[in-house]
């Protein structure tokens, strides 16, 4: 059997970024959350679930590096019913699983849609990684990059694919700024320089600042997806 002589192929497409599922229904919007270790990705996912779970049908995929802790945290916090949270194992390379070889994550997404669907939104949380980790367009439709003020206020200036190209940049833990000597004004100016017109939200999950803005941004994406 040689491809040169194979008849034209009319079978179902392999699902990755395809907008429809094999049964013809429109699939859920997928939003990726990436960022360095400890920047508050899981806490941001939890906040988003609390903000959106009464409005839309949603589920979460976590990519833990060597444990199932993030998934277990979300289950313990009861932000969603446990069957709506799935953990993917990443073989020591979180960025591989969200960018270079997305098969395990696509499988998790599909299983969630099959098992608890129909879903409007799936949040895919990356394992904590470095500033170059971004999601494949084959896996997510939009991505949020989460950094925090305690990780160093020079991160926006340093840039990198996450900071520069993510559809939304969240600068988290702003309540810690006075204690770590972070200059929020400088971070905002650097982020504007790096990102041109792409949005930035300064968030503090402790005092609630910015949480509504992140949820609002996700709502806008959902509206555009279902339009």
């Amino acid at each position, binding site marked *: *059997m*040689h*491809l040169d002589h*194979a008849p034209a*192929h009319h*079978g*179902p*497409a*392999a*699902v*990755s970024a395809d907008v429809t599922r094999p049964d013809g229904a429109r699939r859920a919007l997928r939003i990726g959350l990436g960022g360095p270790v400890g920047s508050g990705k899981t806490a941001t996912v939890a906040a988003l679930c609390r903000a959106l779970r009464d409005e839309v049908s949603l589920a979460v995929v976590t990519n833990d*590096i*060597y*444990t*199932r802790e993030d998934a277990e945290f979300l289950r313990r916090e009861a932000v969603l019913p446990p069957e709506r949270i799935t953990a993917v*194992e*990443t*073989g*020591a*390379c979180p960025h*591989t*699983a969200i960018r*270079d*070889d*997305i*098969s*395990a994550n*696509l*499988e998790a997404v599909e299983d969630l849609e099959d098992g608890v669907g129909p879903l409007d939104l799936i949040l895919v949380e990356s394992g904590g990684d470095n500033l170059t980790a971004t999601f494949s367009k084959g896996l997510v439709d939009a991505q949020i990059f989460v950094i925090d003020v305690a990780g160093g206020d020079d991160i926006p200036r340093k840039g990198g694919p996450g900071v520069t190209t993510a559809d939304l940049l969240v600068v988290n833990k702003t309540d810690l700024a006075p204690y770590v000597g972070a200059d929020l004004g400088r971070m905002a100016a650097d982020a504007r320089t790096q990102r041109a017109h792409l949005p930035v939200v300064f968030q503090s999950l402790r005092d609630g600042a910015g949480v509504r803005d992140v949820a609002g941004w996700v709502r806008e994406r959902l509206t555009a997806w279902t339009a």
Partner: protein
Amino acid sequence: MSRSALLVLADGRFPAGGHAHSGGAEAAVAAGRITDAASLEDFCRGRLHTTGLVSAALAASAALGADPAELDAAADARTPSPALRTAARRLGRQLLRAARATWPSDELDGLARRFPKGAHQPVVLGLTARAAGLGPADAAHCAVHESVSGPATATVRLLGLDPFDATAVSARLAPEADRVVERAVDAARRVAGEGVDALPAASAPLLEILAEAHAGWSVRLFAS
């Protein structure tokens, strides 16, 4: 056969989910059975002649056009550990996704309809080789290569083993791997007349036992 298509399929960067699996190396490292390049070579040699041979024969047989459902049942019968059966089906499902996008074919679509949650990876590998215009020996070569290169690269991450040493292990085993491919293809050619019982059933009990233990760990780097 197309040598270039073979390289695409055998490339460790082919996006079919293999990077998250250690081929039993993580459990063997924890048990103190792999500590350096020499013990890695012993481990890989054992895997080559057991899992590698069986996988290669299954893949070659699928590439020759044997019934995938019969081969999948034969793979089940040759995989005592439920954890390894689950891992093999998961990897099969992930390979099938990548294969259908890479070499679209009605046969692969049919396999996906028949096994929506995945067939054993070597069976999918054989059908993928067919779709890519490759033959049974090519499919078997991919299977034995994976049986050795998976644990070798995982050990680089697990032990910080010198990557040159790990790659040299794969290279030293290459002549043996070629002979395993010959045995696998010979067996696969007998399936048409004798049925799937002609396929080898070489077992590595320790791999099966360690895989069961590994599946119960709460902290681990690899899925299997």
